[in-house]
């Protein structure tokens, strides 16, 4: 195996690990500004994680190994996903490991085990969280697939690197396809649902009746909680870069030119800064919706993706 791509891979993974909390911090910061509050520093997430790592673990009395190992599995699956999505460069040894569909499935593993962990402690909350989480996921899945389908229509491929490459190599018209626009909108809505942001879920709340993701991990503490939180941030980051790779791949280094990396980094920072702002705008603009409204939300996403697909066949 060539040395360069391997290096790229490692860099990318490190970047992921390092930048995910930063991005989370940035989002939080922008949010505070938008709500006119003084924000914690950008580095606050690092501090939280560090603090959690240093704490002891308290397990519920009948928690089984599932509960204990879920954080590692979640973390592992998310990190592996990070090795597949082209963040800096399309030329990654791992990129062939999974196409978009398999990538989504990687997140599904994480979700599956989180949900199990929620059931493991045997409280009402855990079960409630798992049940709701799985429901939302099941509704998000078809929309996601439809979006992927539409993406792949343009670039005859479902492997992210190739999608990105296809868009990079083609002229600007490719990016302006109506189908891709629809698909992108759908993707954003799905990403919001998957990463548990407002209006679907509110990561900041611990209000019993509204929380979903938090309900599942309610019993976690210490390093377990740290891993889960970290993985969550990585997931958010990855969805952002997934969108970036699939719809705005500009700046991502093509195959084998090391030189493009710094440029790619700069692009990345700009993209994510903007992404954060957009995310905050959405979150502050919308209110957390009632649970059974999520159906409509995700239905809309599915509709958009389908429209994109139709648009491809009809308009392009």
């Amino acid at each position, binding site marked *: 195996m060539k040395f360069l791509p391997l290096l790229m891979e490692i860099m990318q993974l490190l970047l992921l690990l390092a930048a995910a909390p930063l991005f989370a911090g940035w989002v939080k910061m922008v949010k505070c500004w938008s709500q006119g509050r003084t924000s914690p520093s950008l580095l606050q997430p690092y501090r939280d994680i560090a603090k959690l790592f240093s704490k*002891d673990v*308290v*397990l*519920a*009395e*009948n928690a*089984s*190994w*599932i509960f204990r*190992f879920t954080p*590692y*599995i979640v973390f*592992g699956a998310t990190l592996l996903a990070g*090795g597949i999505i082209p963040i800096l460069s399309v030329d990654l040894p791992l990129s*062939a*490991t*999974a*196409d978009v*569909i*398999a990538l989504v*499935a*990687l997140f*599904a*593993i994480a*979700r*599956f085990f989180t949900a199990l962990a929620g*059931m*493991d*402690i*045997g*409280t*009402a909350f855990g*079960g*409630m969280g*798992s*049940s*709701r989480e*799985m*429901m939302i*996921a*099941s509704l998000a*899945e*078809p*929309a996601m*697939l*439809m979006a992927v*389908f539409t993406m792949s*229509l343009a670039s*005859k*491929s*479902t*492997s992210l690197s190739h999608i990105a490459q296809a868009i990079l190599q083609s002229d600007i018209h490719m990016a302006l396809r109506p189908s891709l626009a629809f698909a992108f909108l759908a993707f954003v809505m799905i990403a919001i649902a998957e990463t548990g942001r407002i209006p679907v879920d509110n990561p900041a709340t611990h209000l019993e009746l509204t929380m979903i993701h938090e309900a599942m991990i309610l*019993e976690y503490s*210490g390093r377990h909680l740290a891993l889960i939180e970290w993985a969550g941030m990585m997931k958010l980051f990855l969805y952002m870069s997934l969108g970036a790779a699939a719809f705005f791949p500009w700046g991502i280094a093509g195959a084998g030119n090391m030189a493009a990396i710094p440029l790619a980094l700069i692009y990345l920072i700009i993209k994510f800064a903007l992404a954060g702002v957009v995310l905050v705008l959405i979150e502050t603009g919308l209110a957390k919706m009632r649970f*059974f409204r999520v*159906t409509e939300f995700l239905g809309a996403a599915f509709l958009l993706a*389908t429209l994109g*697909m*139709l648009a491809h*066949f009809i308009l392009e």
Partner: protein
Amino acid sequence: MIFSPLDLASLSVLLFLLQVLLAPLFRKNERAMVNICFSLAAAASLLAVAAGIWTVENGTTEKAILVLGLPDLPFHLRLDALSGFFLTTIGLLAFYVSVYSIGYVRGFIGQRPVMRLVIFYSFFIAGMFMVVLADDALFFLISWEFMAAASYFLVMYEDEKAENKRAAFLYLVIAHIGAVAILLSFGVMAGLATDFRDFSGYTFDAMRASQFPVEWATAAFFLSFFGFAAKAGIIPLHVWLPEAHPVAPSNISALMSGVMLKTAIYGIIRVTLDIIKVFPWWWGAVVLVFGLVSAVMGVLYALMQHDLKRLLAYHSVENIGIILIGIGLSMVFMSFQMPLIAALALTAGVYHTMNHAMFKGLLFMGAGAVLHATHERNMEEMGGLIHKMPWTAVLFLIGCVSISALPPFNGFVSEWLTFQAFLLSPSLPAPILKLLMPIGAAILALTGALAAACFVKAFGVTFLGRWRGHHKPKIQEVNWPMRIGMMMAAATCLLLGILPTLFIGWMDTIPVQLVGSTISASAGTYGWLWLTPVASERASYSGITVFLGILAVVAAVYILLHVKPGAIRRGHVWDCGFEKLTERMQYNATSFSMPIRRIFGYLFNIKEQVDLAQQSAHSAFPKRLNYYLRVRDRAWGWLYKPIAEASFWLSRKVGMLQQGRIQTYLIYSFITIILLLVFVI
């Protein structure tokens, strides 16, 4: 070579049939009977597996003619790649289940005669082998019904229970009606093949040789599809399945759901892609639609269940649907002369056949283990078994992950391949298909996600949390043979998940023989590590990398975090400051599936009522609250009840004919004569 694969297969069938002589020898010592007979069964299954693997590997086609049957229509045997594959699938699961049964059937000794179970078990497997080996209509149907009858007796095994009787009866009736439909379809084809001059038309070879006019071929196809659908439990012919699987002994449910349903898949492939070969695209569309409906409805019904085995049974409906999706796709592509994509879809379908056999077998064995340990099928009573039965828990979990189509296990690979086939649908010439196919893909995605939800529920409610039941039985881990059987199945699930390229390379003789193309050439281009169905830049997946990747990260992180020993304290769960959190407050199966029930409620026939018994001082705080929920299959009210009522109504009317007065009877003869005479003139 002394032995040919067909000899091996026949030998194994013979061994199974001979059990009927062997078992009675140990009537006195039932334990010995169980050990010996099931060990023999395991050995015989391995023979079949060997024959199957061998055949598929070389893509050979072997024929033989027995002396049995009608002198003009002796039984024909044929072992080609397709038969070989199903032989392997059935044999493999039969092997695991036989090992498992050694332990499982022990539980019956002393309670009820075991001999019946042993004998019909062997007949059942023999019947399935014969079905895939048969090469003429007569022998096929004989084996088909033989299999059905054997499994009927197995469902009837605990024959004093009303539910068993009901289920068995329903099962047999539907199976038989299906069989008659298949018979008719063979009749049509045989008739066209030789115009009934003699018996030669009944051999599949004669049917293969002849070209059918499209309207007759359509009739034949729909008859046989109906028949096989009845066996495969495709909606709306699925109703027998959730009745029969739960009440049968678990090793039997494992076989029935794991492989018996697959014989129907075999039949569909055999009739469409092998015998009829040329057909309009909308046949494939029909199969596809039925597949989609069964898949999504199956999983939704499964979500509503709280009987563990019933839940699994409905998942069989779902997975059969997924298999049919693959086959339907390949039929569509085939009819448009796109052999490569057809091969991809067919591979996906067949691959999923093998996968489903493995993980569904594993899951039913697991359910059997639970049943064996707790004597409880109702999940609402269970919980926390992971502490009491750690082995079973792990193995069952593997099954759950596989069936939920999560990498790196096998379920994901086949579904992923199906998705790839879907993604290639834009290349179809028919525009309507172009627009509709993606919807199908979306439905498949929904199915997969719901399945995951359902198995979070199944595993979570059964094994996690705390025991919900009022009485606390003495639960212990099951015996070793059962564990070993499950372990082997689980290992197969993993291997099929992480080494897809090898498997596809092995089975590529099937698409070669049936659709005249193969994907293994392209699938293996990147080397065995990467699965690239069509082209590497199109899509790729590497199960083993996912597996090792996750494993590596988990290991690394775990070690990193445990360099300095961090103490783990056990503490009470947070009860929101409201004391005495009881087991009954946990989420259970019903509450877990509530959101989905709410969303898809209109698909079921739901009766739900809440009554606040014993009002206390304040109406907001009732002392107790009774919640009653009944979720019914709509198929009953819409299809089966009307049919039953109609036939009873008719029989009442017919009964009027015979009302006892002899004069009336004489009038009948009188009128008959007059009418006939008039008819003559």
